[in-house]
């Protein structure tokens, strides 16, 4: 029994603080959270909705990694039941269509526009009929 056991290391980075939080209006359950302002703003400006869930807006929690590179890494997409996971280098994006959430870790070399315009659409790709990005929706 020593001091080292008195704290919980966050090995999975589950509890990284996400100070940049954007919430939808009174009728929306959506919430965008990130530890990176550029990512939070980009996600907010390109909000996604999930038509399969009564047009529910997707909530997103995306962590910017301090290191890691996606350069040359192969993109792998795993789809099983309500979960769909995109993995590339140290970038991991998870879409849970039942809970209408996107969770993820983005490696340091991936720019926010790339996340929104390339990676998230790739995550949603096979379900393109169910998901749309809506600039108009964000400005309602």
């Amino acid at each position, binding site marked *: *029994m*020593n001091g*080292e*056991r*008195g*704290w*919980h290391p*966050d*090995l*999975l*980075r*589950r*509890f990284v603080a996400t100070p940049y939080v954007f919430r939808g209006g009174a009728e929306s359950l959506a919430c965008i959270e990130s530890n990176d302002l550029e990512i939070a703003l980009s996600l907010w400006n390109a909000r996604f909705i999930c038509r399969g869930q009564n047009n529910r807006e997707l909530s997103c*929690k995306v*962590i910017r990694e301090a290191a890691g590179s996606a350069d040359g*890494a*192969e993109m*792998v997409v*795993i789809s*099983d*039941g*309500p*979960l769909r*996971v995109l*993995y590339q*280098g*140290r970038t*991991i994006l*998870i879409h*849970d269509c039942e809970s209408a*959430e996107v*969770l*993820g*870790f983005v490696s340091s070399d991936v720019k926010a526009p790339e996340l929104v315009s390339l990676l998230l659409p790739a995550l949603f790709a096979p379900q393109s009929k169910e998901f749309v990005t809506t600039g108009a929706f964000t400005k309602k």
Partner: protein
Amino acid sequence: MRVVVAETLRDGTDDPYFRGLHHVVIASFGESNIFVFDILRRTLSAHVSGVVARDDSFWKEKLIPITLGVLGAAIGLVPVHCACLEVDGHGLLVAGASGAGKSTLSVALAQAGFSYVSDDWTYISESEDGIVAHGTSAPVKLLPDAVRHFSSLQRHALRTSMNGELAYEVDIARTFSVRTRRECEPRWLLFLERTEGAEVEFTPMCSAEARNYVSAGVERLPVRLHEAVALRERTIELVGRLPCWRFRYGGSPQFAAEQLLDFVVSRRQEICA
């Protein structure tokens, strides 16, 4: 569990990489070998190369213990950083910080007549009568200096273990010709501490200390997994009720094993009396 095998990929396993958010945990071993754990739905989805799909030792020694550690929370299985040995139906949990000598002592206890359940992580679940301790098929991990106490290790090579340490990772039954068991009912919890000189000391400890130790060793879970947290708390409470001792010893692990055997025999007589 659903596994997709990419037969054309030949990649072996790389260093492990873990991330998690809310109810989802990802473990990867290189670009091609990715495991997605869903704690709420109790599922595991994976994409692996053909090489890894056929690597028995990977599944047995790495993936199964990791899966127990991650998904165990959903079914009240509590990972405890301790070794577990059994004699005549009585289980002994041996806790201690990394490097305290749990694995070395486990091998010495197994050679002294105990059945080996686990050497580093033991998984505890609630049963009708109390608790059950489960081992895994992971190999026993012994640091390089263990060869001083166990000459049979000379036939084995040191290798880099999952946490980066150089160690002997061997099948305990085959290497030391000892008995193993998959599970047992724990009766005692010992906290291992090393001292200088050949001496042993048993000091009773209060259950709060035991509970704190177990609680501090488990991973913090997100709020939304509150049911899993409650289930886990109940099991931790039961572990904390075990008679608990601090066991300080110096000298060889064989000497400590003899002392522990005497201790268990006398405690067992108390239970039977």
